[in-house]
């Protein structure tokens, strides 16, 4: 094995890849040895194949990356459903914050003189759950001290923006349906979206 002349033989017998190519191959290993006349042609084909090979390889590597990334996003979620029925509008007292669905669905339902809206119980700062302080008439987040008015507007603490509201609508039977998959943010001017409240 150690002292065979195989490469030369192959090069000689192979009509397509003939001798010069072998030299070109050597050239990479030791440039000074190359023969000048055929080197240009060889170099071109050399680079061509190398380019094809490595770009394909790079694409494959990118593909692997995409594969792994995609793998981390499953096609279904086993999380609880995002919408729920919240009873009839008449069940909510005027100007009161209802904590009926705080625990189960993470939503406050609030009725004011004109409308009913559903506030998310997720603090916009870092996602803790604020508490409704009836006496202070405000929501106060226990984690970092953010405070919100009944409307959900932030007025103290590190919370960068008001609480989010959820889509509310009436179903065929006249019950309120809160859809948590659709959010409305005050700072984007979305609270004027008619889907974000129920006129009562």
């Amino acid at each position, binding site marked *: 094995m150690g002292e065979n002349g195989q490469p030369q033989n192959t090069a000689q017998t192979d009509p397509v890849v003939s001798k010069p190519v072998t030299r070109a191959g050597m050239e990479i290993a030791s440039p000074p040895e190359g023969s000048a006349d055929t080197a240009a042609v060889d170099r071109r084909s050399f680079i061509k194949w190398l380019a094809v090979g490595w770009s394909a390889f790079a694409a494959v590597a990118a593909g692997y990356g995409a594969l792994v990334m995609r793998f981390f996003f499953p096609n279904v979620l086993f999380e609880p459903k995002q919408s729920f029925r919240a009873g009839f509008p008449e069940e909510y007292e005027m100007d009161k914050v209802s904590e009926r669905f*705080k*625990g189960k669905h*993470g939503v406050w339902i609030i009725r004011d003189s004109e409308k009913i809206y559903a506030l998310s119980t997720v603090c916009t*700062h*870092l996602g*803790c*759950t604020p508490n409704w302080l009836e006496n202070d008439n405000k929501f*106060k*987040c*226990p*984690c*970092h*001290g953010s*405070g919100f008015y009944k409307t959900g507007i932030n007025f*103290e*603490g*590190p919370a*960068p*923006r008001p609480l989010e509201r959820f889509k509310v609508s009436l179903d065929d039977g006249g019950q309120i349906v809160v859809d948590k998959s659709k959010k409305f*943010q005050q*700072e*984007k001017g979305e609270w004027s979206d008619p889907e974000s409240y129920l006129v009562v």
Partner: protein
Amino acid sequence: MESIKHFINIISAPYVMFPLILAVFFFIFPPTDRLLAIHKKLRLYKLWTNGGGIALFSSLIIIFAFGLTDSNFRRIVTKPDNVPIAGLIFLVVFFLWWSMKQAWENDERMAQGQGPREAEDAKEKVLVWPDLVYIELIALILCTVLLIVWSIFLKAPLEEPANPTVSPNPSKAPWYFLGLQEMLVYFDPWIAGVLFPTVIIIGMMAIPFLDTNEKGCGYYSFRERKMAVSIFMFFWLVLWVFLILVGTFLRGPNWNFFGPFEPWDISKLEALTNVNLSEIIYMIWLKQRLPQNIFLREIWGFLLIFFYFGAAPLLLAKTFLKNLYARLGSLRYSLFTFLLLMAVSLPIKMILRWVFNIKYIVAIPEFFFNI
């Protein structure tokens, strides 16, 4: 007794403690020759002698011993997950002292024209078997002993079963991330939680390339590389370890500040009267309503940021940091100043908050873009 506690409570407030540390820090770890002269005049290097060490340690022990008589302090410090942080304080102080002591000894030797002690030692070669292998074995045996005894004395914490609807007050991240969580008070999550960690990692990796000083390799030393050590100490001790301590021991319900001897009163209120830069400019100075156009509204903040990261390094290169610029070259210099400005932005933001009640320089909550 009570008044001492009260005093400690007051001075440990970040807006007292932090400026205090800032004021003292650069005298203890002087980055320049001028500060070093003051340092020497004040005989602060005595800290790095055996006597200084004893003083440091005994004061630390006294503080803890004194603190542990207080029920509030005891409750916080003896929380199982906080015990390692108490340990961390002792370890950090000890190793800081030890390294600085060796550094000063070497500095003295070199001042007298001798090489560092390590150079002397290095002349002699030692076979690894059995000396090194043996002390390693002993070290890991002792380490195991420590772990076992610790585990016997202190049970790992286990709280109530997870409940996604009830958040404990306060909710704290694991202690080594409390520095980041503390930063959240001053910065938006995308900066404190994403940008800063990334910059910290990149910055740390960049250290060998920014520090072009060839001296001080392979032995403890301070004077030869005081700028590097001083900056590192500032980042590590002040912006990392200190913030962890604040986050662990001094942040209570509602992430309010509580002194070490103050009970964690859930109803404690702090006046949070922060405003954005745009509000100051338009509402208070110009007595106008905020412009509807976001860009117009925040243009001043953007200009300020641009100046801070764009123009300031250039100005500095021409003035204060002329020498540094010359030494580092433009690429290294811009990376260095960027990292430095990034890091300094935290104390700046803190001070802006405390002094001017500034919440955000640029506030575009519509796009979650607040600086």
